[in-house]
């Protein structure tokens, strides 16, 4: 196992320690449980946004807690849900009376625990709404859209909902922004090497050199099929086609693009991909108004990439362009 770690069972606690030691001006832990991080200035009085999920995806989820982004995060073990209690505590710490949107990826473990947390929050008089990231088009066909898993595209929702909360939108409005963005986001990914859980030391799948997994998730899940490794341009076309179909993109449409590295893929390769995305969009008459290229939602040391599109309108673009700042994400 080629990892720079200590005892694997302390991995998550130690990395949170590192984050708190490095960014004491931006993040804090509201109580004794370090698995809950919130903005240093929480509660702000505005609508709170709480996200959460397993560890191993940095900068997702912990990295999107900050001004113009989420207000807090509940942190599970690597690829495991936080507990209901932790999800609830996070909401409690960020609620300043305006209520809290739970915004996280559609995974059974997370859903069951966050749902329990909404009950706990209700008991304490904290109003909550829940919006689920479910952007991965490979995970379910369009008829079962609501069952799709959430992957990198949730970044758009963090950014948009965070901006909406920052400008003072109320609870229902912030939830509606998140829902609107997720509804218009589509993602698909490929894997070139597996991920390795620190606790087990085992690769999530075996992939011979020269092959790729198509339609992978961000937890080392296998894809929907496997094929020979293609060129960057072929891969881009393979990923783009279902996104264009799903969002029904047509000439004149505007989009935001996220070319996301899964952890081990060089930034250089992501820019080679972006080049072709740009050219293909041009061919379709679709304008890229905003692009994010880099590691935004990873799967530890997995090699691979995902491509996300958000169909834009003026409102969505304005929210994406609003300022934001966390230790891991800055929109100046």
């Amino acid at each position, binding site marked *: 196992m080629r990892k720079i770690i200590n005892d694997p069972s302390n991995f998550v606690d130690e990395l949170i320690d590192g984050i708190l030691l490095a960014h004491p001006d931006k993040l804090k832990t509201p109580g004794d449980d370090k698995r809950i991080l919130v903005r240093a200035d929480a509660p702000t009085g505005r609508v709170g946004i709480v996200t959460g999920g397993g560890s191993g995806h940095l900068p997702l989820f912990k990295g999107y807690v900050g001004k113009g982004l989420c207000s807090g995060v509940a942190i599970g073990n690597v690829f495991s*849900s936080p*507990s209901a209690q932790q999800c609830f505590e996070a909401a409690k710490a960020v609620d300043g009376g305006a209520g809290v949107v739970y915004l996280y990826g559609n*995974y059974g*473990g997370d859903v069951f625990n966050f749902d329990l947390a909404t009950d706990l929050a209700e008991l304490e008089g904290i109003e909550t709404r829940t919006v689920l990231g479910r952007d991965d088009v490979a*995970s379910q066909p369009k008829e079962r859209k609501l069952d799709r*898993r959430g992957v990198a595209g949730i970044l758009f929702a963090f950014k948009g909902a965070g901006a909406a909360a920052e400008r003072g939108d109320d609870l229902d409005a912030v939830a509606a922004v998140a829902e609107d963005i997720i509804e218009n986001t589509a993602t698909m990914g490929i894997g070139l090497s597996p991920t390795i859980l620190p606790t087990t030391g085992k690769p*999530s799948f075996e992939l011979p050199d020269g092959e790729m997994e198509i339609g992978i998730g961000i937890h080392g899940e296998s894809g929907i099929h496997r094929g020979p490794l293609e060129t960057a341009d072929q891969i881009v076309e393979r990923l783009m086609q279902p996104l264009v179909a799903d969002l029904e993109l047509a000439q004149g449409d505007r989009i935001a693009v996220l070319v996301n590295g899964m952890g081990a893929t060089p930034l250089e390769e992501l820019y080679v991909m972006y080049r072709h995305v740009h050219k293909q969009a041009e061919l379709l008459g679709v304008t890229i108004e905003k692009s994010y290229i880099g590691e935004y939602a990873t799967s530890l040391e997995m090699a691979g990439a995902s491509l996300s599109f958000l169909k834009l309108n003026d409102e969505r673009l304005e929210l994406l362009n609003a300022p934001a700042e966390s230790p891991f994400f800055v929109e100046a």
Partner: protein
Amino acid sequence: MDVAGLNRAIRNSMVEIKQYADELRDLDTALGDGDLGITVSLGADAIIEALDATGDDVSAEEIIRSCAKAFANANPSTMAALVAGALLSGSRLWATTSELTTEDASAFARAAGESIGKRGKAAVGDKTILDALVPAGEALATSSDVAEALDRAIAAAEKAVVETTSMQSRRGRASWLQERSIGLQDPGATAFLRFLQSWKAANLDQA
């Protein structure tokens, strides 16, 4: 079985079930994210610890509630949340029972299955833990002899687990594999079978 016996029997089974962690990890790696081995082994440890703290002078309901809480928090995940909810549902039936029969066990399984079905929006045939739990629970009621009832439940679960292999996963992470899930054995159903087998192996003397 009395409450002290229940406490001991659970604890013994939990020690036993940890040996299947690697198998469950591998099954869940193929069909999901590979954490089921951890969920089961950390969950088993947490239950043992919780039972150590609980003592014997409590109701069967309270014992099961401690187990549910411990399992839910050890490694929160789908299985942890579903099993914890299922245990809580079942536990209510045992609030006043002091001598547990195979009938009680079967009723518990039925309540547990309903809880999982509701929370997980799942039914038998979706290729989940339910596929093993439901027929095994029914088998428990077919004999009042504990050993015989358990053997029948194990047989029913074993058959069901084998059958999951040819099915397509309809719920949870495995469902994202779509057609590719066909041919792989369901980890959750397997975990339930291993639990029954662990119970038998660990508690032979009491059986």
